[in-house]
């Protein structure tokens, strides 16, 4: 008998093994739901599959009576728009801050402590100030994502820049590079795939901030809908929405990973397989 650590499942086995926990969780849910519904047929906490399909039909296939649009699509596009914008701004900001922070000793000495402190501030607690500065509209929602996510990416990029071997900077200098041309020809292209990795890893946090922002003030969006229907505990809407958010998060994670390796074939160090 081989050691457990040396046993490797075949591809087919691996696929079915990977499916198993999902199936078990599904069965677990159905049993729990049935038990509760047997007690109170109107129970809303763990709806039956039938209620789910009804809710999905209502939200995703039938146009809303009030606006004539399909709520689910409206919500998704509003949220993705905010998320995309927030992530994009964060990524650009993080590059602009993280590279000098990791590369120029004077900048690091000046701003590293401030950025570190800033990254520890819980943004939810200073919302009133954010509202004054950014208003209550779309900008505020995007700003909350940016404020929540940028410091995380900045710190990661700063770290990565300082991990580029010093030899490369010396070499580039002997080739006639200036601080600026070293940034754009040596650091930027090397840090870019890492930025994508970093964005990928902070996507979860970005979603949390998006949902919070939409819970605070919005008229559409995935987070808005979840908090609105929470008012009458429509878990039949909430749970499909959560599943959808999870799926989207998963998808973006996957696509970003693929994109990174596609765009940067030379990039493999520091890759995260998990």
């Amino acid at each position, binding site marked *: 008998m081989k050691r457990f650590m040396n046993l490797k499942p075949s591809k087919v086995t691996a696929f079915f093994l990977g499916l198993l926990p999902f199936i078990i969780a599904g069965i677990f849910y159905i049993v729990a739901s049935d038990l509760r519904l047997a007690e109170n047929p109107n129970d809303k906490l763990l709806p039956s599959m039938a209620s789910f399909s009804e809710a999905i039909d209502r939200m995703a296939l039938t146009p809303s009576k009030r606006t004539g649009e399909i709520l689910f699509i409206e919500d998704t596009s509003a949220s993705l728009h905010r998320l995309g914008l927030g992530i994009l701004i964060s990524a650009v900001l993080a590059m602009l801050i993280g590279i000098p922070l990791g590369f120029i000793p004077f900048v690091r000495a000046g701003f590293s402590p401030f950025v570190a402190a800033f990254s520890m501030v819980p943004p939810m607690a200073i919302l009133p100030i954010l509202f004054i500065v950014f208003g209550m509209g779309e900008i505020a929602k995007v700003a909350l994502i940016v404020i929540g996510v940028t410091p995380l990416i900045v710190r990661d990029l700063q770290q990565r820049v300082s991990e580029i071997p010093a030899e490369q900077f010396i070499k580039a200098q002997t080739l006639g590079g200036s601080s600026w041309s070293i940034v754009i020809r040596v650091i930027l292209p090397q840090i870019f795939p890492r930025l994508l990795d970093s964005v990928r890893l902070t996507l979860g946090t970005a979603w949390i901030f998006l949902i919070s922002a939409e819970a605070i*003030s919005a008229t559409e969006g995935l987070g808005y809908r979840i908090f609105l229907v*929470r*008012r009458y505990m429509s878990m039949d809407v909430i749970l499909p929405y959560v599943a959808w958010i999870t799926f989207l998060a998963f998808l973006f994670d996957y696509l970003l990973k693929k994109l990174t390796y596609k765009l940067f074939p030379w990039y493999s160090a520091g890759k995260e397989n998990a």
Partner: protein
Amino acid sequence: KDKFTVSWTIYVGWMPWDYAQQKGIVDKWAKKYGIEIDLVQVNDYIESINQYTAGKFDGCLMTNMDALTIPAAGGVDSTALIMGDFSNGNDGIILKGKKNLADIKGQDVNLVELSVSHYLLARGLESVGLSERDVKVVNTSDADIVAAYSSNDVTALVPWNPQLSEIMTKKDANLVFDSSKIPGEIIDMLVINTEILKDNPKLAKALTGAWFEVMSLMKKGDTKALTFMAEASGTDLAGYKSQLKSTKMFYDPKEAVEFADSSALPNTMKKVSEFSFNHGLLGEGAPDAGFIGMEFPNGKRFGDPKNIKLRFIDTYVKMAAEGKL
């Protein structure tokens, strides 16, 4: 069953429960009836009702409208044991700069969607011949609504207290409509699961007894008790008193009985039911506003008698009024 839990939320009309709990008044009455009662503070109002609806609590403090749309619509047969007060100016519509409610037309209105604020807005619009189509409702969390006022793009809000009085201290804030114009329509009450109530009248007696003991203290204007409540709700005595001013508390059980027995109550609930139906709050399966049946003292009823899920009773308040507890 002799151990019960009731959830409560910080709100001017519910602070007496905190006092009763902290000062041992609840325990005293519970002991009298040989039971144990635990009052659990939940900060998120909706979560508190959701947990009650899911069966985690035996009772919960909520408004008449939420009692209809959350537990009753969720199939949990509930009984309003004590109607402690109604909002008499605790909820209001504020416009920035403008002085008339009619000016709200075309504006974005920040409020907690599908809550009593939303209902108040609907009633207010009705009073000036407008409808919800004339404004755009922006769902805004109650915790952040004060901060929202400071933002330039917010021009109309429907908050409740203490946020309401907080916003009123600010520049350009005009109160153009408030709940004193629809008295008795926004009711704060203690709701108990009907089944549990049926099996445990002791619980109802103990809670009612404790409640009116605190009421008598408040009626006397017991500064110590009021200060205690003020601090627990995060303000001071003056702030708390000003909130009480816009709350019609039933200090005397007789008043409470009178309110429960009045014919205004079924009328109010009909309006609330219609509002809720129009906003899809009675569930997707509801064919009309009478889908969920309600029962009032003296055998009055509204809606589907086969689907009675919300009951208003005066039994125990009456006992308190008669000093039988």
